[in-house]
Structures are given as C-alpha cells and as structure tokens.
C-alpha cells in the first residue's frame, strides 16, 4: 500500500469504518438498550433506536428474547454466537448469525456488549437447496430400487411362465416388466426436465390436439390397468401459443398420477379418469384431469407441490408434480386442486387464451 493510501486510510474515522460494514453493529448496555448503532442498522430500523432496547427494535417485542447471546456474554464475559431471524418493516425476513463480545472498563468489569449481526440468508438458502438435493437423490434412489424390484419380479414371472409353458403367467409377468419400463422412462424424463430451468418454446397449436395426443398415449396403459380413460375435448377452444412438449408433459404427469391413484384405491370396483380441454371463461381455457380414486386428505393437499413430497409410498417421488408446477409457472398459468377423501380429485390448469399472465381472482 502506498504512503498516500495509508494517509487516506488514516483519514477514515473509526465510526465511518463501522458504518461502512455490510452488517449490523450495535453496542448494548446491561439493560439491553442500544448505545451505539452503525449506519446500516439505522437505515433499516430508523435513526431513533438509540436508548431503545434491542428486542424492541429488532423483534418488536416488549420482552427479552429467550435465547440472547448478549445476556450470556454479560454473564460469563465470553463471546457468544446465536442464530436469529429478523423481520424488517418491508416484510423482508433475514436469517442472521449474531456475535456478542464483552466490552470491559478499566478495572475489568463488563459494562457493555458489542453485537454483530451478519445476514446469512444466502448460505441458509444454499444449505436448504443442498438438503433438498440430498433428499431428492435419496427418494429417487428409492423409486428406482422399486422399479428394479418390479423388473426383476416381472422377469421372474415371465421365466416361470415359459418354464411351465403357461403363456398367461408369462403375459402377466411381461405386463409388469412393461409397466416398470414405462415408469423408469417417466422418471428419467422428469429428472431431465427438472434438471434445469428452461424457457417454453411456444408455437401456435391447438390445446385440444395437445390434450388428445397426450390422452391417447395413456389409453392402452389405462386399459391394461382396468381404468376407463375418457377424453372430453371442446373443439371450439382456439389455437394458442403453447410449448406443446411442456404442456403434454404436464398433462401426462397429471394423468399418470390419477391412474396410479385409481390403481391404489381398492375401495371401488370401477375407476375412471377424465381428461378435459375446454373454455374456462371468455379469456381463459383449461385442462382438467379428474379421477374417482380415493381423493386426498388435508395434509396431502397442502404438501402437494412441495418438492419431492409424495403420498404414493413405494411408487412416487413427488417429482412429477414438481415438474407440473414448473411448467404451469413457465406458462403463467394457474392450477386448482379440488379433492374429497373417498370421492376423487380434480386437477384444473388454467391458461389465458392470449398467453398473458393470469389475472383471475
């Protein structure tokens, strides 16, 4: 560093350096009142925070916090660290790490504490993402293991049928193998789709055609599962700009979920999945997938679009609905879920006919 720079640094006051720190710095007395606050703290909480208690300023509370590093520092004269959540007046929630250190007088008594609060929201978010990633890999592995079990089991039944010259047994085994091939294909496609954010490639297409083609992909599957798949398509829904690949994937995931829900539901003898494409109102159209399976309870409904939530036990990761949610978001659409335990579920996805953002109330 040059001498002129050194001279410049010396010109800086202690207070101006503290004010420039990108964190909150305060000094508190034994009653937790703020004796000093740096500029950032004043900008976020106002100039009139001197001589006001820390908990009143930061937590808008009349009571001391149950866990307070400053209190601990006053007790044992040592540095303490804690995690705090700070709510700003603009609604921002900051995850902070708080450090408190003792300030001694000439005879070694702690007369005040200096407290630093550093925003670690980014680190926390990264941590959450890593946790989610870990959970997702665990759940995907679980799903893949179940598919392997299905493939091995199906292959065993095929062989047993061949050995016994029992074509019916072989056929049942082969259906299990095919089902698991379909499932691994679906999982792989969803992993690839969710692996990165992608912008929809919009082309002017008929939403009805997308609905018809997607529905037809599942007709044989539904039939093999003993489920009636109905397509109710209103040909008057006009052509719009859509990413037909994305919409087809979204619709396919919803149909597959409904088929699996029906298969899992043993309370009813006859199951049906209905796929509809129709007007929602003058400005919107909708895709609907309705089933008469077991419906969902409150907890399942609330967690439906959380990453990797699944109520399907051994046969689902929650990845499918995550992809559904992402595709709808990319198309500025909205999803409604109507469900009743023991009655069934209806997933309704609504898009604007002119591709603008939804303004539904």
């Amino acid at each position, binding site marked *: 560093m040059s001498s002129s720079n050194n001279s410049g640094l010396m010109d800086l006051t202690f207070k101006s350096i503290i004010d420039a720190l990108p964190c909150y710095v305060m000094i508190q007395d034994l009653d937790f009142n703020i004796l000093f606050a740096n500029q950032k703290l004043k900008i976020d909480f106002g100039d009139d925070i001197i001589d006001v208690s820390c908990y009143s300023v930061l937590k808008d509370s009349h009571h001391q916090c149950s866990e307070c590093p400053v209190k601990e520092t006053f007790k044992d004269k040592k540095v303490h660290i804690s995690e705090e959540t700070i709510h700003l007046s603009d609604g921002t929630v900051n995850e902070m790490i708080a450090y408190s250190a003792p300030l001694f007088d000439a005879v070694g008594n702690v007369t005040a504490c200096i407290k630093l609060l550093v925003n670690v929201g980014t680190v926390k978010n990264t941590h959450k993402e890593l946790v989610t990633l870990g959970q997702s890999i665990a759940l995907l592995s679980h799903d893949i293991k179940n598919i*392997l079990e299905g493939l091995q089991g199906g292959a065993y039944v095929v062989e047993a049928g061949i050995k016994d010259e029992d074509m019916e047994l072989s056929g049942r085994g082969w259906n299990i193998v095919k089902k698991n091939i379909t499932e691994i294909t679906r999982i792989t496609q969803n992993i690839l789709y969710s692996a990165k954010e992608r912008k929809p490639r919009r082309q002017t297409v008929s939403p009805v055609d997308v609905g018809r083609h997607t529905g037809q992909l599942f007709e044989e599957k539904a039939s093999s599962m003993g489920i009636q798949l109905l397509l109710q398509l209103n040909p008057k829904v006009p052509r719009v700009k859509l990413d037909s690949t994305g919409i087809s994937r979204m619709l396919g995931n919803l149909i597959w979920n409904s088929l699996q829900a029906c298969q899992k539901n043993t309370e009813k003898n006859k199951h049906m999945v209905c796929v509809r494409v129709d007007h929602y109102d003058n400005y919107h159209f909708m895709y609907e997938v309705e089933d008469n399976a077991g419906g969902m309870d409150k907890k399942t409904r609330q967690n439906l679009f959380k990453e990797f939530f699944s109520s399907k036990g051994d046969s689902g990761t929650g990845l499918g609905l995550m992809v559904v949610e992402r595709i709808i978001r990319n198309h500025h659409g909205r999803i409604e879920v109507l469900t009743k335990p023991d009655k069934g579920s209806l997933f309704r996805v609504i898009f604007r006919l002119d591709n603008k953002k939804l303004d539904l109330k």
Partner: protein
Amino acid sequence: MGNTSSKIVIVDDNTDYLFTMKTFLTRNGFEVETAHDGQTGIDLIRKEHPDLILLDVMMETTFSGFEVCRQIRNDSELKNIPIIGITGMEDELGLKFDEYDDADYFSPDAFFDKPVDKDALLKKIKDLIV
C-alpha cells in the same frame, strides 16, 4: 423346496410385488395369502395364523408396516410369528432399522432391502420357519 404346510402372509401395497412374490413363494412350496394394506393384513394374519409374515415397511395405506408389526407384537397369540420387513428406504435415508430395540416400536426378525435377493430371502424364510 420349503415345507408344503408352511403358510406365508405377504402385506404390501404394491399389487405387482404381491403377485411376483406370491408366484415365487408358491413355486417354492409355500402356501401364500396376500393383503394390499395394513388393516387387511392384520385381519388376514389374525384369520390365517401364518408361519411367517413378509411385510412392506413403508406402506402408505390404512396404516404402515410399522403399525402392523406393532399390533402383531402386542398380540399374545401372534407375537411369535416371524416377520421379515421389506424396505427400499434403508440405505438412502440412513434408517438403520436393526438399531431399534424397542419391541413396541418395530421388531422384525429380519430385513431385506429392495430389490430383494430372492435366494437369500428363501434361505432366511426357511431359517425362520422352524
């Protein structure tokens, strides 16, 4: 070949798994009954008094395999029936079921991770059915 008089109840919410495992065990000489949810499983076990139970741990039906096991272990007539727990979750979520020693919680006699090694399973079943 197993003892032809030995009866096994399989409880699993995956109907394909029930079918393939039933095919496998039947071909190895066992009498097999199946249930696709916890409640049906308990009812079936009470009715059949099987020699062994093959139980899916992570069923998301009326109640889970954990609850089925708890009920069996708390039933004086059923508590000695050997139970083999089947799971696909042991490795991934770090669940170490064999570390649980609270009999009221979950106490199978053996665990198998999916995909199940059928030969090893068969050997274990024969070991457990005295």
